């Protein structure tokens, strides 16, 4: 009886694919595990979900199934309980960015807000970009200074023996950061460095690029698993908190022959072993786009 118990647990958690308990991650018992990006949606069987006021008495507005949601935390208790039709629900506060009205925040039953990947039918299908011969420089205008010199260049010295794993393309805050060629977004924005973000794209031909130090602003039609075309805006050039440097696009490129996280420990770049020097490629794209290169 007991020897079958772990298999039953695995079967149940695999079947539900939502709020599973750790099987292969060695998480402490009771820690909730969800899959996919940290991208919450409304997940219900009905077409819409009621969003209530703080007293949970009045419906403020409704949101459509699979609408984006952002749970709100406000330095205090953000969870309430209410019994409806004999069933006790825990309510959480959430923002619904796509709502057109002035009020975008309200209270909903916690069970109905889950990650997109955990919600049947809500996941965006993976779109593989068609091969494209087109490659382009990833900023709208030429960098204000050369990315082949100084601290901006690939392999420039950093502290503690580390080497710079990217070319830093100095531009202005908020300017578009562009896809160097067609590809698919494999990791949507995440916290990267001092208040900036990064996005990862698998490009046609297998190369993987990390576009770092961009702002948190989402570019049109950019999301996990979405395909992009050469020159499409992926995000916007950002600036780190310290103001150490001119706003930039931090551009890293990988051949795609290795697997695992792009950031690593244990080598001088602190990066995956298929990291490549993008300088010559950038130089070629720069010349093609602007007629000249550094």
């Amino acid at each position: 009886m007991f020897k079958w118990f772990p298999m039953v647990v695995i079967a149940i958690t695999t079947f539900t694919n939502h709020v599973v308990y750790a099987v292969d991650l060695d998480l402490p018992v009771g820690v909730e595990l969800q899959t996919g990006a940290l991208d919450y949606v409304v997940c219900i069987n009905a077409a819409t979900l009621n969003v209530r006021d703080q007293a949970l008495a009045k419906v403020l507005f409704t949101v459509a199934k699979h609408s984006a949601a952002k749970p709100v935390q406000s330095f205090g208790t953000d969870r309430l309980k209410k019994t409806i039709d004999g069933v006790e629900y825990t309510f959480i506060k959430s923002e619904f960015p796509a709502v057109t009205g002035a009020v975008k925040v309200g209270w909903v039953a916690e069970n109905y807000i889950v990650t997109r990947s955990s919600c049947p039918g809500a996941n965006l299908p993976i779109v593989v970009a068609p091969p494209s011969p087109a490659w382009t420089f990833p900023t709208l205008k030429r960098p204000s200074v050369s990315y082949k010199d100084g601290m901006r260049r690939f392999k420039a010295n950093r502290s503690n023996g580390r080497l710079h794993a990217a070319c830093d393309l100095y531009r202005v805050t908020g300017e578009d950061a562009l896809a160097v060629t067609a590809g698919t977004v494999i990791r949507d924005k995440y916290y990267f460095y001092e208040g900036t973000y990064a996005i990862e794209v698998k490009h046609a031909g297998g190369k993987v690029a990390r576009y770092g130090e961009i702002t948190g602003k989402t570019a049109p039609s950019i999301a996990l698993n979405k395909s992009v075309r050469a020159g499409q805006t992926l995000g916007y050039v950002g600036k780190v908190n310290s103001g150490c440097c001119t706003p930039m696009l931090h551009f890293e490129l990988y051949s795609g022959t290795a697997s695992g996280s792009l950031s690593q420990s244990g080598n001088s770049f602190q990066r995956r072993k298929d990291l490549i020097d993008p300088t010559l490629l950038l130089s070629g794209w720069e010349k093609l786009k602007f007629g000249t290169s550094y």
Partner: protein
Amino acid sequence: MKKLIATGATILLFVFIIQYLRAPVPSSQVAGEIDLGSPSVTSAKETATPPVREPAASVPEPSRPLASNAGKTPNVPKPADSSLEAMGHTLGQIGQPAFSLKGLLEDLQRTGQQPLVVRDDNPDSGEMLIVRTKSPLPGTRYFHAQYFTDESGDRFVQHMSFEFKPGADSMSEAIASVERNFAGLSRPVVQRADYVKWKLDNHYIVWVKKMAAADLQEDPFNSYSLSDDGTIRVAVELEIHGE
């Protein structure tokens, strides 16, 4: 002879009892006694006014350090900043070799924060684990940790942060908390009224930022309103640039 042995045994027993009484309480025992978190769920029927946004001053008295810190923290935090101190301690463990994902989660569970792990992986750039909490300590919120996996299969922190309530002294309290919780911290490499950054010895940086309205816009994970201007964020990250 027998009397001598009996006397010796008595002395040894006495010494043992004294040593036992003086020994620090094992963390596993302390853990069960401490509840730093406020009740994570409030009954709607019980509350005359909405319970949202409790001031940190009304935080239940935690008065003792986190279990993993028990027995070694000389300065017991004051109630008003105990949540900040607990979270500062969590981030401050980044330099300790034994600081694992599991240890982090256990710490967050022990303090009643209800951690949640989101596993984001793909065949081309591997796995990123995100840790969030559902029931942050009063006065703090939006704990967020990103873990990557190195080639030997070990997970490591790439980013870990939390936010602290806005207030006249919040920035200085957060800075003081970092200074207390990061062992061997050198002088800041950047020091402005709204931003302080230190370099750690292990490829990490730690920073404290008083967030202006512009900093709070377009965050892909967190929701903000106008009243959040002045929120303090404390973060530890892998370093990218030097100064």
